[in-house]
């Protein structure tokens, strides 16, 4: 078989992996700091795509500006969500999930009301393709990969170095001890919601030119995010990003060489195998009360 095909699949896998990690980061931060499992995160991503589309196509401003606006608007929306349903359900997993499903319905019907049900087409921003040592990928896919990996690196540095990043990590590992050190738990969970939703919105915004904007994207992406968070382990940001990469590669190789359904089965099978051996994920540690 052609060697270039393997590299093609590899790059596609990294692309999918960076998109999955844009989703899973929000899930990890929100579960760790705000202690809710945000099932509506896939819909948050679609909201990002919708807002980007609305500003870029309907209003007609610059594409990158539209992505940044989407990021800010959806991030603000995340802060609102933290206040209205989620703060009451901190640590109450079942109620949090039901609340998130309610939010899913609100987003679904709200966007349907505002913009209708048909798939929105953003169109290509930067057409053409680039040949990189025999591996051909369209330019926009290179851009997505670059943006995704940059965001991940930036987030890793922010979480390691900045004061708020350290505060978030402290609050995730032990909320009470962190509160005793003077870390305001409300501020950190707001920040976690903002970063999570903003990153998901960027993901939605940059994938809009190739996948279009459609509510049906929400469920597959949240499922992949859940797979990544469980395989990587809730509470371990780096582990979840690595798991997202592994999932992206699995999906890409199976789609290229077998078929997509087999890829999904392999991904979910991997999840079950990991949980049975290490219930809290490959890199996670037990989170009491979940």
């Amino acid at each position: 078989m052609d060697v270039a095909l393997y590299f093609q699949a590899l790059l596609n896998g990294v692309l999918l992996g960076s998109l999955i990690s844009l989703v899973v980061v929000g899930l990890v931060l929100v579960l760790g700091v705000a202690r809710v499992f945000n099932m509506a995160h896939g819909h948050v991503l679609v909201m990002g795509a919708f807002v980007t589309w609305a500003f870029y196509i309907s209003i007609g401003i610059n594409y990158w500006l539209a992505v940044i606006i989407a990021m800010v608007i959806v991030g603000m929306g995340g802060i609102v969500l933290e206040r209205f349903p989620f703060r009451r359900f901190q640590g109450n997993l079942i109620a949090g999930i039901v609340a998130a499903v309610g939010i899913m319905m609100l987003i679904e019907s709200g966007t349907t009301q505002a913009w209708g049900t048909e798939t929105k087409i953003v169109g290509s921003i930067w057409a053409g393709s680039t040949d990189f040592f025999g591996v051909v990928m369209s330019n926009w896919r290179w851009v997505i990969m670059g943006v995704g990996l940059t965001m991940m690196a930036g987030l890793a540095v922010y979480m390691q170095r900045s004061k708020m990043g350290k505060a978030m990590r402290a609050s995730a590992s032990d909320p009470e001890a962190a509160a005793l050190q003077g870390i305001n738990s409300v501020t950190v969970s707001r920040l976690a919601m903002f970063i999570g939703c903003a990153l998901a919105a960027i993901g939605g915004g940059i994938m809009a030119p190739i996948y279009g904007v459609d509510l049906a994207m929400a469920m597959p992406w949240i499922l992949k995010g859940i797979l990544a968070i469980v395989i990587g382990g809730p509470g371990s940001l780096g582990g979840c990003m690595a798991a997202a990469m592994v999932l992206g590669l699995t999906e890409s190789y199976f789609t290229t060489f077998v078929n997509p359904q087999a890829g999904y089965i392999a991904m979910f099978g991997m999840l079950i195998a990991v949980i049975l051996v290490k219930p809290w994920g490959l890199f996670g540690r037990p989170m009491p009360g979940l």
Partner: protein
Amino acid sequence: MGLHFTRKQLIFVALGVVAVVVIALPQFLSQYWVMVMVMMATASALAYGFRFLITTGRFTMGHACFAGIGGYAAALLTTKVVENFWLALLMGGLVAGLVALGIGAVILRVPGLMFAIITMAVSEIFRYLVIMWRSLSGGITGVLNIKSPSIAGFNFGIDQIPYFYLILGILVVSVVVMYRMERSRIGLAFHAMRQNDPLAQHLGINIFRYRLLCFSVACFFAGFVGAFQAHYWHYVSPATYTVMDSFMVFIYAYVGGLMFPAGPIVGSCLLVGLSEGLRMAKEIAPLFYGGILILVIFWLPGGILTLPQESRTQWRKVRTFFARVRARAS
């Protein structure tokens, strides 16, 4: 001479009245509303099984999948082997129960959240397997042309009313069995496990074995419901057993109130009725639906059935507030 009833007698009288009303109602309603009642009963049966598992402190996000497994088992039996409704019903329940027994033996050892996520993974794997295995399951179109059930020479045809009595029978059987189990010694073990896992283990309860029993019984009845649905819709397809459908079962039970045996039934009737009733205002119905869902869990975290208790507490608060205002004024 005054009439005096004990609490138990009152409950029996109320149940009798409800039973008479529910049995008589389809005769006075149009086919559409009987169909809605069938949907309510189906949802109630599934949600009751979901709550049954909640009594052991675990929740699942793949309950609709087990209905799907039962539905496929029943559909394949009637279309490919032998055409007998009762056999298909039993087959659906047994297959779903056995699959749950096998899967549960492996996955019930992990913590609660992870168990829920694995059940979701199982439900997705089931869906993709069905889509892939075209020769047996018909792929994405599913199994079509399932004949209407005929029992003792009586064919159900397309009239909704006999289907309603059938699903009502299934609902009553499953509720009675699960309720009696919950009220027996086994049920006490379930509740002990929910309240304190390690303590129950120290008291000598084999928590794994009891959870397995509970999970397989709940899925057995889910399979029953699936087999009924297959005969009611005359087809089974992977599109009707998605993760979202499992979420809906979860929501029905939660909104009704997880701590009450009647909770799932009340929740399903209310939410299914609401979504059908709102279908008249098609444009903004889901907005109302999602909003009501969030408001209910926000103000009544214990479910709709805590409404009397909650309103009493709130009323008491209002009264003390006014009493304080009056005291200050005088």
